[in-house]
C-alpha cells in the first residue's frame, strides 16, 4: 500500500541545476550590464588612439602631477584611517561603555552625508568667511584649496571603512584570548600584535583596500575643496574631469583607466590572498 515510488533525489540544501544556472546567468548579466559595460567603455575610450595615446597622455606633466597628488593623499589618509579603525574597534569591541550605540552610528554618519555637503562643511569651517578660516589665512596656514583640505575631505568620505570591517570581527572574537595573554603577563602592545592583529588581519586588510580604493576615486567632496589648480591640487579624479572638458578624451579616460586598474589590482590582491590563505581565513572569517 505504500505510495513510495522511486524518485530522483530532490536536492535539499541547494537548488536544482536549472535554477542554479538561471540564477548564475542573471547575476552575470547584471554584473556585465551594470559593472563591466561602464568599465569596458572607459578602457575602450582610453585606447581609442592606441597604446601610444595612453602613454602620451599619462606622460603629460599635469597627469603625472595628479597621479602623484592622489598617491600622496592616499598615503596620508589610508594609514590615518587604519589607525582610527583599529583604535575604534579595540575600544568598541573589547570594552563595555555608555553611548556605544550612538558612537557606532556616528562612525557610520559619513556614509549618509552627500560628498557635496562634506565639502561644503569643510569650506564653512575653514573657508575665508569663517572666523577660524580668517585666522588661518592671517597666519598663512592653508587648509582648503591645499593638501590638508583635500586630505580632510578624503578622510571624511573613507572614514567608516576600516572601522566597519574591524568592529564586527573583533566583537565576534571576544576577548578571551587577550585576557588569557594578559594572565600570562604579556604587555598590552604585545597582546595586540601577537593575538588581536593576527586574528583580525583579513578584516583590516580588506578595510584598508576598500578605503584606499575609495580614497583614490573620491570626486565630489574633493572637487569642492581642491581649487583645481593644475599640477598642484588637482587629483586624478578632478584631472579626469578637466581633461574631459578640454576635449582630451583619451587623456581623461587613460587616467580613469589607471584608477580602475589600481582598484582592480588591489581587489585582485585581496582575492589572491583570500585564495592562498583560504583555511586560515575560514577560521577567522569576519561576520
Amino acid at each position, binding site marked *: 500500500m505504500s505510495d513510495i515510488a522511486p524518485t530522483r533525489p530532490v536536492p535539499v540544501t541547494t537548488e536544482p541545476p536549472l535554477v542554479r544556472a538561471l540564477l548564475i546567468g542573471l547575476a552575470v548579466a547584471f554584473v556585465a550590464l551594470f559593472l563591466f559595460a561602464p568599465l569596458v567603455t572607459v578602457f575602450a575610450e582610453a585606447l581609442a588612439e592606441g597604446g601610444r595615446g595612453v602613454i602620451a597622455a599619462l606622460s603629460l606633466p599635469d597627469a603625472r602631477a595628479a597621479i602623484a597628488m592622489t598617491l600622496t593623499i592616499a598615503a596620508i589618509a589610508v594609514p590615518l584611517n587604519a589607525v582610527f579603525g583599529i583604535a575604534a574597534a579595540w575600544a568598541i569591541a573589547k570594552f563595555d561603555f555608555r553611548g556605544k550605540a550612538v558612537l557606532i552610528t556616528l562612525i557610520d554618519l559619513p556614509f549618509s552625508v552627500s560628498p557635496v555637503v562634506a565639502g561644503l562643511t569643510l*569650506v564653512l569651517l*575653514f*573657508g*575665508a*568667511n569663517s572666523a577660524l*578660516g580668517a585666522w588661518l*589665512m592671517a597666519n598663512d596656514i*592653508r587648509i*582648503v*584649496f591645499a593638501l590638508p583640505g583635500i586630505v580632510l575631505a578624503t578622510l571624511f568620505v573613507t572614514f567608516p571603512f576600516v572601522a566597519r570591517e574591524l568592529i564586527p570581527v573583533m566583537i565576534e572574537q571576544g576577548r578571551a584570548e587577550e585576557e588569557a595573554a594578559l594572565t600570562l603577563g604579556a604587555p598590552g602592545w604585545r597582546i595586540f600584535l601577537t593575538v588581536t592583529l593576527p586574528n583580525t588581519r583579513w578584516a583590516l586588510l580588506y578595510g584598508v583596500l576598500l578605503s584606499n580604493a575609495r580614497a583614490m576615486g573620491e570626486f565630489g567632496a574633493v572637487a569642492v575643496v581642491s*581649487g*583645481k*589648480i*593644475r*599640477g*598642484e591640487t588637482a587629483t586624478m579624479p578632478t584631472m579626469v574631469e*578637466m581633461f*574631459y*572638458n*578640454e*576635449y582630451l578624451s583619451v587623456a581623461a579616460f587613460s587616467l580613469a583607466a589607471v584608477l580602475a586598474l589600481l582598484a582592480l589590482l588591489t581587489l585582485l590582491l585581496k582575492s589572491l590572498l583570500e585564495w592562498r590563505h583560504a583555511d586560515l581565513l575560514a577560521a577567522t572569517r569576519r561576520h
Partner: protein
Amino acid sequence: MYHTIQIGAHTLAQGTFIRSLGDGRIEIDAGHARLSGRPVADPKPPAAGGVLGALRTALTAAPLRGGILAAVAALGLVMAGPTPAAAQDSVEILNVSYDPTREFYRDYNALFTAWWTAQGNAPVTIRQSHGGAGAQARAVIDGLAATVVTLALSADIDQIAERTGRIPADWQSRLPHNAAPYASTIVFLVREGNPRGIADWDDLVAEGVQVITPNPKTSGGARWNFLAAWAYADRNGLDPREFVGALYRNVPVLDTGARGATTTFTQRGIGHVLLAWENEAFLALAELGEDAFDIVVPSVSILAEPPVSLVDGNITSDAQRAAAEAYLAHLYSPEAQALALRHHYRARDTSLAAPDDVARFPELELVTIAEFGGWSVVQPAFFGDGGIFDQIYEE
C-alpha cells in the same frame, strides 16, 4: 608698485604701469609724463649709471611728487640690491579662470613667460585653475589664493570684490575696455546641413525643437545665452519673459557648465541646436570635425565681455605684483590679441593677427550688458533666488 624702464642708454625712469606696447616696451606714468621703454627687472639691481640716471631723471622732474617717489624707489632698489638670491626666486601667478578659456590661456601662458623672461625678468611660474565661473569665483571668495582672475562675467569679479575686499571696487577701470581684453558672443551650433532650418531665435521656440543650453544658475555662459534671447524678443516686439520661457520649455537637458552642454549636444546627439559661446562653437568645429556641425549666426546677439582683474589682496610680493600686472596688461599686446583671435575670441587689436582669424567673425547686431543696466542689476533680477529664471520653472 613702480615699474622701472630704460629710457636712454644710461637713463631709467620709474612710474605706475599703464600698458604694454607689445614690442617688449611698456608705458608708464612717471608723475610728470608718460614714458615708454623696455622694463628693467624689478628685483635686479640696476647698473650704477642706471641708478644715477634714474636719480637724474627723478631730480630733473622735481618738484613733482612722482619723480621724488621714483628717486626714493630707485634708492630702495640699490639698498635691496645685494640680494641676488631673492632676485632669482621664481614668482608664481595663479590664474583662476572659467571653462572655455583653457586652450587660450595654455598658449598665452607660454607666450607671456617667453616674453617676460626675454625682458630680463626672473622666470614666472603660471598655474591655471579652470571650472564653472561661479564655482571659481566662490573658491576665490573662500580663500583660493588667486593672483589674477579671468572670469566669464564682471558680476563674478564684483562678488569677489564685494565679499572679500581683496579687489578694489573700481577694478573695471584699471584696464582698457572695461578690463575685458577680448570679447565673444553667443551663436547657434546646429547639426550638419541645418536639418531643422534654424536661422534665428524665433525658430528655437517652435514646437518640437530641442535646445541645449547650460543652467544659468551654474554657468556664466548660460547667462549670456539667456540675455541674448531676451534681447532678441525685446527688439522684435515680443514679450521677452514669455519668449524665454517658451525657449526653456524646449530645453531637455540643463548641464551645469558650458562644456557639459557642448558634450551633450555633440557627443550624445541630444537636441537640434546648441546655444554656445562663439569661441566654443568654433572650437567644437575644429575638435570634432567641420562636417558634423554648422554655425548659425542669429540676427541679434549679446556682446559678452569676459573681464580680468588682479586680486590685490592675495599679492605677497612686489615682484609678484609686477609680474601679475604685466601678465594682465600683456593680454592687450598685439601678439596676445592675435592669439585670442586665433582662439576665436573677438579681440580688438588685429594688427598682428592672421587675416583668416579676423575674417571668420560674422557681422551681427550685438547688444551690450549696459542696455540691461549692467550686471549689478541683471544678476539679482534675472538669475538670483526667485529671479526671472526661477519663475520660469516655478510655473
